[in-house]
């Protein structure tokens, strides 16, 4: 017991008497959970019904991806193998995009996330992909060095790097003219089939690395380190001070929809930030695979699952779970419903677009802007009423004092 705990206990003993006298018993009936236990129940449900199944699914998808890339590596000129490997990559990406919204614990940054091990960046580091470095590695064959790959920077590994290797049909490289692979002529010396062969081999090394990271993430939650125990028993171990603290970590992860999806995945291509022209469609996530929209849909799907424990609003209302249950139990059921309604409207706005987003910004800009508008409406609720109702802190707020 640390000093603060001792002080808390003394203060509680000294000043709690009157409250006890007036407050009466607070013990819930055996059929119900209250306070910290209720929060731990929610955390348990999130861990077991969202996090663990997502991780298990992603491991399977990465294993399928490795199998598909092995086939391609064996026959780099086989168009069917190339198609199959792209489908496998899309499946893995779909699965991972759900986990983008689950960046708490080991998936989170090693700096600034409780229990974080930085595994997300090993699996997917968009938008930090360094395509020139990837081409250099392809040309040099450096990818074959498993030891070097294990400690490679995040921007030359992961699903984003794989996208470049698997979907880029150009035989040019992404480096400036004065880069070594161009000035030395090493890239120019490669024939088309050689480039495709090397890219497939490079992709295989990266796919295996992604699979290993997926397994590492799953093991971090269920293996010897057992982050799940830390999470579902928050307040009894070291990572989280309380169940509320762990709940805040999950809430922080939900803000992915605001800071990443709204501001980066949509805000930049729509020319709202980091764009010097009116529109920057090249900034859409997955612009080679044209998967910007499915990625956002997967993000929203995971958001909904964490929020309500269900895939549809009807199911969520039928059996309240997760944050939806917490809000409803706390008397903020109206807010919970408005958040679900806002999620519905967001999904409808996404569904209204039938092409990829990079095309849609030219063909139907208002429809893409409508997605942004619906995202804003949902994240406005998140940033105001949601954190108020559950007394949660905004993510990345620097430590410091109040008042």
């Amino acid at each position, binding site marked *: 017991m640390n000093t*603060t705990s001792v*002080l*808390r*206990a*003394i*203060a*509680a003993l000294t*000043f*709690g008497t*009157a*409250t*006890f006298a007036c*407050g009466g018993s607070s013990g819930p009936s*055996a*059929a*119900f959970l*209250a*306070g*910290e*236990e*209720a929060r731990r*129940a929610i*955390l348990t*449900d999130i861990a077991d*019904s*969202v996090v663990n199944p997502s991780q298990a699914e992603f491991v399977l998808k990465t294993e399928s991806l490795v199998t598909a890339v092995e086939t391609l590596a064996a026959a780099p000129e086989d168009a069917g193998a190339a198609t199959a490997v792209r489908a496998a990559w899309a499946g893995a990406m779909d699965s991972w995009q759900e986990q983008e919204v689950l960046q708490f614990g080991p998936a989170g940054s090693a700096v600034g996330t409780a229990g974080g091990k930085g595994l997300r960046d090993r699996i997917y580091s968009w938008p930090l992909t360094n395509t020139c470095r990837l081409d250099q590695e392809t040309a040099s064959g450096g990818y074959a060095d498993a030891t070097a790959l294990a400690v490679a920077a995040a921007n030359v590994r992961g699903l984003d790097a794989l996208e470049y290797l698997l979907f880029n049909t150009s035989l040019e490289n992404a480096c400036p003219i004065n880069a070594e692979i161009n000035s030395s002529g090493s890239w120019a010396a490669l024939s088309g089939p050689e480039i495709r062969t090397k890219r497939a081999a490079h992709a295989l090394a990266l796919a295996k690395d992604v699979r290993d990271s997926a397994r590492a993430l799953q093991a971090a939650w269920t293996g010897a380190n057992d982050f799940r125990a830390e999470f*579902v028993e928050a*307040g009894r171990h070291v990572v989280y001070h309380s169940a*509320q603290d762990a709940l805040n970590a999950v809430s922080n992860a939900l803000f992915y929809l605001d*800071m990443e999806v709204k*501001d980066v995945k949509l*805000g930049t291509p*729509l020319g*709202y*930030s980091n764009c010097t022209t009116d529109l920057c469609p090249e900034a859409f996530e997955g612009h080679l695979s044209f998967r910007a929209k499915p990625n956002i849909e997967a993000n929203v799907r995971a958001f909904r699952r964490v929020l309500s424990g*269900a*895939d549809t609003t009807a199911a*969520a209302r039928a*059996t309240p*779970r997760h944050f939806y249950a917490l809000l409803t*139990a706390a*008397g*903020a059921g109206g807010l919970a419903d408005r958040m679900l309604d806002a999620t519905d409207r967001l999904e409808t706005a996404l569904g209204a677009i039938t092409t990829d987003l990079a095309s849609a910004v030219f063909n139907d800009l208002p429809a893409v802007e409508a997605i942004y508008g619906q995202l804003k409406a949902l*994240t*406005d*609720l998140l*940033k*105001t*009423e949601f954190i*108020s*109702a*559950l*007394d949660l802190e905004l*993510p990345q*707020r*620097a*430590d410091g*004092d*109040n*008042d």
Partner: protein
Amino acid sequence: MWWARLKTAGARPVDVASLVALRVAFGVLALFGAVRFLANGWVDRFFGIPTFFFRYEGFEWVPVPSEGGITTLFVVMAMSAVGIIVGWRYRLSMAAYLVAFIWVELIDVTNYLNHYYLVTLLGALLLCLPLGATPSSTKRWRLTPEITEVPAWMVWLVRFQVGVVYIFAGLAKAGPDWLIHAQPLNLWLSSRTDFPLIGPLFEHHATALIFSWAGFLHDLLIPLLLLWSRTRALAFAALVGFHAMTHLLFNIGMFPFIMTAAATSFFEPAWPRRLLRRLSRGAWQMRPTAIKVWQSPRAAWTRTAIAIAAIIFCTYQVLMPLRTHLHDGDVLWHEQGMRWSWRVMVREKNGTVTYRVKTAESHREKYVSPLQYLTPHQAREFSGQPDMIVALGRHIAGQWRARGFDDVEVRVDALASLNGRPAIPLLDPDADIAAPGTRGLDPAWIEAGPTTAPPIRLPIQLPARVPRSHTRSTGDDYVDVTP
């Protein structure tokens, strides 16, 4: 007649010991505060990382030092604090501390805290009092107070300062949100159910209501109860308990410690000597070797100037928190007159701000996130404060104009939720807040505040068994989720 009696009572010499004790406590807290700021890496977070600072109106000229410069200012604060503790070169030390402290505080409004303001006022007051120490004539290592007795009015001024803080903090709570709906305490307490022993009670509205009334009565009555000798000890014990609870429950930094230290000024002025004598069982007599009474200046004009300065100081203290009444509406909503008014921990306000920028060159409005300019800490602090929202909007307009855009119009979608209410617009979304000819915040842009009562946060009770995931299985079988 009463004036003559007041003058006589005010001129009565009293032991300087309580003020010296306060000086030492102030120095210790100042030292701790500066070291804590450096140790936590907050120089980088609050001054190194931000690229935009909200400046106080009229103080835009205050230079923003580099990160190294800020670190140096904190080192100056720490070194000065040592001088304040020991009393050597006291006024120089206090002046250096205040210059460094105020300089840092004036850099960014988002760093404003009520207790920083209190440190400034209390420091300025202590600076004016003769609380220095000089080396003993016989033992050079030993510092003794330059003055052993001061006129009572000096102690009164300190008590007045402390009393003002409590009374205005109490008055700030005298509203329906606090006293009837127990908000925001209901929201805050309900998330702290892990608190030892009584944590489970925190979810109940009744607990928040009791705490709300206790806090209100504490703040309002504590100065009076401290003034009366019969209730003083009990009142101080309650005060210590109150601040211990606020320290343990809320992240309010040094405030509880500063207030507790400052409240000791209400004790009889010789209390430190008596306490030390009692603690040492008489071994330390703690009597001053020689009585050195503070002499008021001989020149009448100097005495008059001191009296006028004291009156101005006290008048300022009273009027400053009241200035908000020049504005209609709820200060917790429009925030005009919120700073420097001791409205401590009385609102839970969460806002979201998005700017909409339109230029002559573009056919559409562009959304601009404040996070392009602010750190998350700054964004959190500014999002409920209209003057800062407008300040950043004007900065954004300036940036766009500098990039060559003409006819830049900036509008803002600013929503805020006050004490758990539904979020509503804080500023007029149609107002061009950066239009040529406008200067800062126009109060007309502030939308009417909420008219509904804040919600009551109910105790959370969940069924011990919840259905297995809808997302991964079609079955509706139930699973025990008790960890």
